[in-house]
C-alpha cells in the first residue's frame, strides 16, 4: 500500500466538490465515515473551539448530517427549492499531518451560490481529518472556518459548504 499523496487528496476533494455542485448529496454522504462530524463554527470563535460549549452555525454528527441530506433533497426544504446553482473552487490543498490511518488536510474554498437572481460567495478554510483504509479515503471530520465577519449579506448556510 503506497502512502497517500497530496494529489490523491486533491482528487478526492475535487470529487467531493463536484458531487456537491451536482446536488448528488446521497453519494456525497457516502464519503463520510459512520462516526463523522461536519462543523461550521461562528466567525468570532477560535478555530479549534468545541461545539459542546460554544455556539456554532452547524455541528452535525453523522446522524444529523444524514438528516440534513434527506431534508435538502425534499421540496419542503424551501430555502433550497428549487435547488440553487453552486460552483466550488477548492485550492491551496496541504497535508498538515498524518498517522497510520489518518491524514489531516487543510484547503481553502470559494463557493458561489446563485438563486433567484442573487449570487453570494462563501469562502474560508476547510480542515479535514481523512481516514484511509485499503487506499479508500473517507471523511472523519470536516470543519469549515468561514472567512469574513459573520454571514452577511448571504445570511444562511442552506447549502453544504
Amino acid at each position, binding site marked *: 500500500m503506497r502512502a497517500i499523496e497530496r494529489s490523491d487528496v486533491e482528487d478526492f476533494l475535487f470529487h467531493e466538490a463536484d458531487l456537491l455542485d451536482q446536488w448528488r448529496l446521497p453519494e456525497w454522504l457516502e464519503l463520510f465515515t459512520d462516526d463523522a462530524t461536519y462543523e*461550521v*463554527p*461562528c*466567525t*468570532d*470563535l477560535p478555530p479549534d*473551539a468545541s*461545539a*459542546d*460549549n*460554544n*455556539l*456554532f*452555525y*452547524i*455541528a452535525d454528527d453523522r446522524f*444529523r448530517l444524514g*438528516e*440534513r441530506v*434527506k*431534508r435538502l433533497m*425534499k421540496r*419542503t*426544504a*424551501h*430555502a*433550497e427549492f428549487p435547488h440553487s446553482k453552486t460552483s466550488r473552487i477548492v485550492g491551496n490543498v496541504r497535508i498538515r499531518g498524518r498517522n497510520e490511518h489518518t491524514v489531516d488536510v487543510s484547503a481553502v474554498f470559494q463557493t458561489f451560490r446563485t438563486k*433567484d437572481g*442573487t449570487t453570494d460567495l462563501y469562502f474560508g478554510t476547510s480542515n479535514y481529518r481523512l481516514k484511509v483504509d485499503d487506499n479508500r479515503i473517507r471523511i472523519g471530520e470536516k470543519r469549515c472556518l468561514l472567512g469574513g*465577519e*459573520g*454571514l*452577511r*449579506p*448571504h*445570511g*444562511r*448556510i*442552506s447549502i453544504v459548504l
Partner: protein
Amino acid sequence: MQTDNRQPAILVDPAQQIFKVARRNFTDPEIFKAEKELVFERSWLYLGHASELPKPGDFVSRTVAGRSILFTRDSKGTLRALLNTCPHRGAQVCRERKGNAKSFQCFYHGWVFGADGKLRSQPGEEAYAEGFKNRESSNMQAVPRFETYRDFCFISFDRNIVLLVDYLAGAKEYLDLICDQTDAGLSIIAGTQEYSIRANWKLLTENSIDGYHATTTHASYFDYLMNTTDGLATGMGGGGYGYDLDNGHAVLEYGAPWGRPVAQWIPAWGDSGKQEITRLYDNLVQRFGKERADRIACKNRNLFIFPNLVVNDIMALTVRTYFPMAADYMVISAWALGPNDETSWARKYRLNNFLEFLGPGGFATPDDAEALEHCQRGFNNAKEAQWNDISKGMGKERPAYNDELQMRAFWTRWNAMMFPAPVSSIKNVAA
C-alpha cells in the same frame, strides 16, 4: 419628521374582524427613514447581556440602531454604555470587537480613556487650558439612557423615555419566567450568529411570533423531529395562547414536542438525560411549587420586546436582535443563553438543540429567511395588491398561539408611534 399619512398604514375594524397592514410599510424608503426617528430613537433597545462582561475592564463594541457603542465594565465593576467616538475629533476609540482593557487609546491623536469613558491623558497636555481634563466635554459621552433588567441591558437615545421596567410592561413576567430557570444566573454562551435577511425588519418581528407558519414552512423540520422524538406526542397537549403584553410587546406560550434542557425530556436523550432533567425539574418544584415549575419547564415562550428583541425559550434559550439597513435588508445577531450551573451534559444538548432548529445553518431558520425574502419580493406588487391580512383569531376571546394577535399588538404600537393621532387644537378643546 412628519410621515405621509394620506393613506392609512393599517386598517382596523374589530366589528368586522378586519386587521390589514399596508405592504407599503415594508417597502417605502420614506417609512424606513421615519422609523429611524420615530421608532428606534424612541424605544429601549437591547445592547447586550451583563454576563458578556464578567470582569472589570471587559468590553464589547457593538452597533445599535446605527450607533457605534462601547459596552464596558469599568474598574469599579459598573456597566457603562459609551458612544464609541473620541470627544477630540470623532474617531472610533475602540476598534476591537471584544476583550479586556485597563484603558482605551484613540489611535488618531493618542487620547487615553478609562473604561468609564473619562479622559486620563492626552499627548501635549500642557498646550490645553488648565482644568481641561476635568471638563465633562473631554470625556467619552455616555449613551443618553442605559438601564438593565435581570442582566438584560438596554439603551435608549430618548432622554425622556419611561423607565425600562415600566416600558417592559407585561414582558417582565415572561423575562422572569425565563430567568427563574436557575438561581445561579444565565450567561451568554460564546459564539455569535451574525447574519442577515434580504427583507424588511418587520417581517422578522412578525415571523418571530408567528405560530401559524410552522407546519408548512417547517414541514421538513417536523419530519426530522418524528425521527428523534416519540412521534410528536411529548408536550403536545394543551396547545397554547398568544398574548398582547402592552407597549407593542407580545408572546406566545405553548406546549411542543421537542426536548427542553429546562426541563422536558425526550427519548433521544436516554436514561442519563432523564435523570438530569428530573433533577432540574424537581429543583424547580422545590423553588416555585408544581404549577409554576410546570410552566417554566414544559411551556415554550416566543417573547417579543418592541421593537426588535426576541427572547425564545424553546428547545434552547436564544436572544436575537435585528436592525434595518435599508427597507429591504436587515442584519441580525443571535446568541444562546444557558444557566451558569448547567452540567456539561445539558450544555451540550442545549447547543445541539439550538442548531437543530435555529440559526443560519439550522433546519428551520433558512426556510424562514426564504419566506421573508419571498414576501419582500411579493411586495413589489404593493401598488396594486396593497394589504396584508393579520386578522386570524380576531373574534376569539382568547386567541391561540397560532392566531395573529401578537402581530396585531406590534402593529398597533408601531402605528401609534409612526402616525400619532393629531392633537386637538386649543380651540376645539375650549369648545
